[in-house]
């Protein structure tokens, strides 16, 4: 899901990067206000976890690969705004040092994996968890579904970003300037990889690590309500 440079038009990159500026600002404000100093190492370990889990490429039947992100896990454990920062840092180093995801496309990749993914996953979890106890079967199921939904919505948004390129940007000779596949190819390809494979991995990773964290360090993870969303 790491869009390289050249696949999205500069205007697409600029638009999504601009959208991310207030998101990063808000994330910084909320983390500053609500995260304990003792939780900072956990946010950093969450970022490392996201980086490492993204290195596990899973084969997809069509010959491509996909991977989990770990962002929903961080969102449930430390709050979605902490996940924005943690996943953004991982994506930044991936782009800068390892060429995984473009530099110009950093804003787009952050929008997909560090914003859409943790927030949609987190709200799905909140919707399903109800008043159940952290670590209960229902809470773990809610976390797993949250992971599944979060990564799939992120993949859908990425597929739309890819798919609108040939509709909007065509060279004088009629060939696409950027990503050549339209929505009818991009959406099925991205969704097949994530609906059938990577979504289940994201869900399993989210529930398994949370099960461990809720048991071993309940004081550091926010079991049900998360850090105040929107700074409330």
């Amino acid at each position, binding site marked *: 899901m790491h869009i390289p440079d*050249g696949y999205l038009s500069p205007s697409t990159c600029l638009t999504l990067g601009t959208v991310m500026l207030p998101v990063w600002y808000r994330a910084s404000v909320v983390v500053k206000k609500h995260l304990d100093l003792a939780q*900072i190492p956990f946010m*950093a*370990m969450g970022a490392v*976890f996201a980086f490492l889990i993204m290195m*596990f490429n899973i084969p997809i039947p069509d010959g491509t*690969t996909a*991977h989990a992100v770990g962002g929903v896990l961080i969102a449930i454990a430390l709050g979605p705004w902490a996940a924005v920062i943690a996943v953004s840092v991982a994506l930044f180093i991936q782009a800068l040092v390892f060429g995984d995801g473009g530099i110009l496309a950093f804003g787009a990749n952050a929008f997909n994996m560090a914003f859409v993914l943790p927030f949609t996953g987190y709200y799905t979890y909140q919707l399903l968890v109800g008043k159940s106890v952290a670590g209960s079967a229902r809470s773990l199921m809610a976390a797993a579904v949250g992971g599944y939904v979060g990564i799939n919505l992120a993949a859908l948004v990425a597929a739309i970003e890819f798919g609108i390129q040939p509709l909007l940007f065509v060279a004088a000779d009629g*060939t696409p300037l950027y990503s050549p596949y339209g929505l009818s190819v991009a959406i099925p390809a991205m969704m097949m990889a994530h609906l059938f494979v990577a979504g289940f991995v994201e869900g399993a990773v989210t529930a398994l690590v949370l099960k461990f964290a809720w048991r071993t*360090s309940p004081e550091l993870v926010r079991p049900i309500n998360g850090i105040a969303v929107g700074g409330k």
Partner: protein
Amino acid sequence: MRRYFIGLVVLAMLTPLGSLAEGTAWGEWGADELTTAFGYIPQGIEQASSWWTAAFPDYSMSFLGDGVMAGKIGYFLSAVLGSGLIYAVTSLYGKFLRKTDSKFFLGQKG
């Protein structure tokens, strides 16, 4: 905290397994793969392909050589290097946010 750290070390040691899968993620093809698939490279992709060269592209460390084993070791060393960098950047930024009474974050004192 120690248990989480050990968990991350184990995960890092397992990363070479993550490079076993053949193929490229959808939409992340390099110029050569696109040429094979289409017979041409879209102009925008061609222009962007050379302007940024990462130190360790695709988690590979070229100084180790070309072999399969070199690829696995490079992937693992990339996991270690990336983890260190990401831990440092995230915790420094987190501490910066928590500790500074920055005027940049309007009205968010302490």
